[in-house]
């Protein structure tokens, strides 16, 4: 804490009517900040007044500032009166609609740091905010992690304003609200909470805001940090908040009665609340025909089961219950393992870890090298390991199949949870075979049954069935035809349950 800040890093200095005092405070606050541009001007012809402009280079729209603001102030202020100069400058001097009033030094500094320009006028203990933000950004990028065959290819970016506009384009409803908050004592990260006020459950938005404000943190740089601070079951590997980079998915979630939380500088937005079926739903499920979507969904659920269970099932069958599978297959597997020096469990763990390493290396390396590593690691090393009889070919197939299955899950965070739980099942199966496998399944199911996302049980509609009647069941494992998806999910405001009806009814 220093003389100008309190313990929460809020600026405590008071704004003054004396411009020089205000300049001294701002100079002291922004000492050794070479990117902060300050300019003192004297404007007016017969009645002159001193003004002070301050902004951060690289964060403002220089054209707006130079052409529409400074030029106007220098050349068009001849009729500046002797009193009410503040109001005159605000109305005549600034050729932009987006201006605001700042009454405290804390607000002034925050405005500057957010990329807007602040104008102080001698004789007034308030300042004018000129909205001039222009961050360097990559525009609206193409989606990389949630790719669809049919549907929009747009993705959220790091700029909050762009992200908000992507939602606004899709939902043109006056009831779509945008609630701004700031998180981070030092980062002061802008967060927007978007929801439709008559669709969202009562109290949910306040609960989310309270959860966000529960912690006093230095800085938030991604929505993932916020997600971890708002979860109630922090120990669970399963995400209790859904994240997405797709604007259409976020818009769809808002229309279901959910709340979207956007974090500045993060291309992933958070969707509150969530259930397990949300993680198996992809955007193009709703753009394609219902039969195709249903088949794809069923495949995803089966793949999810394989992703978590296949290696453990293989271990239990080979080590403890080989009589479960047909004898020719057992002999085939045994022949494939002939000469391998390691036990099945070691083989599985080594290959799983190897795959994790290749996967992690592929993410960290730049584009072209990443795919090369994938090919080198997957094909050549795997092939070589089999040829050297270090692992059996069947293990390579098992691990590869498991990986492919985990990649079919649309939500990456949810798929990550499966990776962790897979090891639990592997360990239990290694010691207790099929019995251990079942124990692991029981532990995971019990854990999932106890999870909630902002009061909504995770396993809806598979559990707590009577709550939601038909709405979630029609869009869970199977996707009913679009005309049959008439109701919003259980977590929406129950007074606005119907989302689709025939025009004349």
């Amino acid at each position, binding site marked *: 804490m220093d003389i100008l800040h309190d313990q929460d890093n809020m600026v405590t200095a008071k704004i003054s009517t004396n411009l020089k005092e205000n300049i001294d405070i701002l100079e002291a606050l922004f000492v050794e900040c070479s990117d902060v541009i300050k300019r003192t001007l004297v404007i007016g012809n017969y009645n002159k007044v001193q003004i002070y402009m301050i902004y951060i280079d690289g964060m403002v729209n220089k054209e707006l500032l130079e052409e529409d603001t400074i030029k106007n102030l220098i050349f068009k202020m001849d009729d500046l009166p002797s009193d009410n100069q503040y109001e005159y400058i605000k109305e005549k001097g600034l050729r932009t609609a987006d201006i605001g009033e700042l009454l405290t030094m804390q607000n002034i500094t925050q405005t500057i740091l957010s990329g807007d320009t602040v104008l102080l006028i001698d004789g007034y203990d308030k300042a004018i905010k000129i909205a001039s933000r222009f961050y360097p950004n990559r525009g609206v990028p193409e989606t990389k992690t949630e790719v669809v065959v049919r549907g929009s290819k747009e993705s959220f970016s790091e700029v909050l304003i762009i992200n908000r506009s992507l939602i606004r384009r899709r939902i043109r409803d006056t009831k779509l609200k945008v609630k701004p908050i700031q998180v981070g004592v030092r980062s002061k990260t802008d967060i927007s909470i978007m929801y439709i006020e008559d669709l969202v459950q009562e109290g949910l938005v306040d609960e989310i805001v309270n959860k966000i404000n529960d912690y006093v943190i230095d800085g938030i740089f991604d929505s993932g940090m916020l997600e971890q601070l708002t979860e109630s079951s922090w120990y669970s590997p399963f995400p209790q908040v859904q994240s997405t980079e797709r604007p259409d998915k976020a818009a769809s979630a808002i229309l279901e009665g959910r709340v979207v939380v956007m974090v500045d500088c993060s291309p992933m937005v958070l969707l509150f609340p969530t259930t397990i079926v949300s993680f198996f739903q992809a955007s193009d499920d709703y753009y394609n025909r219902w039969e195709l979507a249903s088949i794809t969904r069923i495949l995803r659920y089966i793949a999810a089961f394989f992703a978590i269970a296949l290696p453990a099932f293989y271990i239990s069958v080979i080590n403890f219950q080989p*009589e479960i599978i047909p004898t020719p297959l057992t002999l085939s597997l045994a022949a494939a393992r002939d000469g391998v020096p390691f036990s099945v469990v070691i083989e599985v763990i080594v290959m799983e870890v190897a795959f994790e390493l290749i996967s992690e290396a592929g993410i960290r390396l730049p584009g072209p090298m990443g795919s090369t590593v994938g090919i080198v690691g997957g094909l050549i090393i795997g092939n070589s390991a089999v040829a050297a009889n270090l692992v059996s070919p069947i293990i390579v197939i098992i691990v590869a199949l498991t990986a492919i299955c985990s990649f079919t899950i649309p939500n990456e965070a949810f798929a990550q949870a499966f990776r962790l739980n897979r090891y639990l099942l592997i360990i239990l199966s290694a010691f*207790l075979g099929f*019995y251990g496998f079942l124990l692991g399944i*029981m532990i995971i*199911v019990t854990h*999932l049954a106890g999870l*909630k996302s902002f009061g909504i049980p995770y396993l809806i509609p598979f559990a707590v069935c009577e709550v939601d009647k038909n709405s979630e069941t029609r869009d869970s494992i199977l996707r009913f035809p679009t005309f049959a998806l008439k109701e919003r999910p259980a977590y929406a405001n129950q007074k606005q349950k119907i989302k689709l009806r025939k025009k004349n009814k």
Partner: protein
Amino acid sequence: MVIEDNNKISLKQSRKMLVFDLFSIPGLIVPYLAANTAGRDGILTIIIGTVFAILYAIIILRLSSCIQGGFIEYSQRSVGKILTAFFYLFYLVKLFATLVFSVAFMGSIIRDTFLVDTNFNIIIAILLLTCSYTAFRGVEVRARVIEFLYYIVLVPIIILLLLGIKGIDINNLAPIITSSGTNIIAGSYYVLLAYSAIDLFIIIPAFLCKPTKAKIKFNWSIGFIGLFNLLLFCVTVGNLGVVGTTKKLWATVTVMQMIKMPGGMIKRQDGIMLSLWLLAAFTFISMLIFYLSYLTNKVLGRKDYQYFILPFVVIAFLVTLIKIDITTLFEYYGKYMAYIGFPQSILIPVIIVSIGKLRKIKGVEEEKEDE
């Protein structure tokens, strides 16, 4: 629609829980019970036993509709704390005996089917720990687990049993009414004992979202289990015969080995079917641990029932260490249930409610409304 963590379940959830409780471990031994006492007339014992069970359920639910929720609280107001504690001991013994038998029974099946070379104590210990985790999470979580597993467990088993109809030798099932009336009635009584989970409906209303004065109808659940037991008996005895069925307590598992599934991909489908059955058994055992802890907590007037879970699990484990053959254990357990366990489940609530009516004690819900 926010669901609070208040340990409350819905009527639909409680019905599914009842089906699971009646089917999980009792289902495995019903064919043995019926065939052992009445041979081929086991079909009749199951039908009569199910009818008895429905009547039993009506009595229990009638009594619980007078109590309207907290059984222990009502009992303490009706007969006093000392007598409630005395009655609690009967429930404690019954639940604990059922827990020990269930654990030993499932442990024996697991050892026989899955883990021949593994130490029995390890199987039991891990079984108890896993079930205690589910009990620890509360009745709400247990209900959701059952809802999640409900169709996953029941549908494949029923399909397998229906496939087993093809292998039935009618000579194993007919003619019927060849046993004496005494055997049939005795068999029906033993089948009725398999439905003893119904007596927990004296306690379950405390966990229902809306414990109303009106009778809660669970007859369809009992009827469904009755039909299931009938199918199970027909397939088991039809395939193995009476002698084959009475050779082992879990003859049902044996018959699952014999049924051929189309495709033939899985050679030992009894392993797969038993694993599904095992999932149901986990919930049953966790139910017993939960109620033991819950009742003890209520009687002692403590805040959290979770503190009692581990002690009961440890004691149950120590008791199962006693080297006793499962068939002998079953015999002792059967006699206990027949002469003490089942009669007490009617007598104790009748005494409590009768005294409560005489003393004009109101039900728990009525008492709350008055307050």
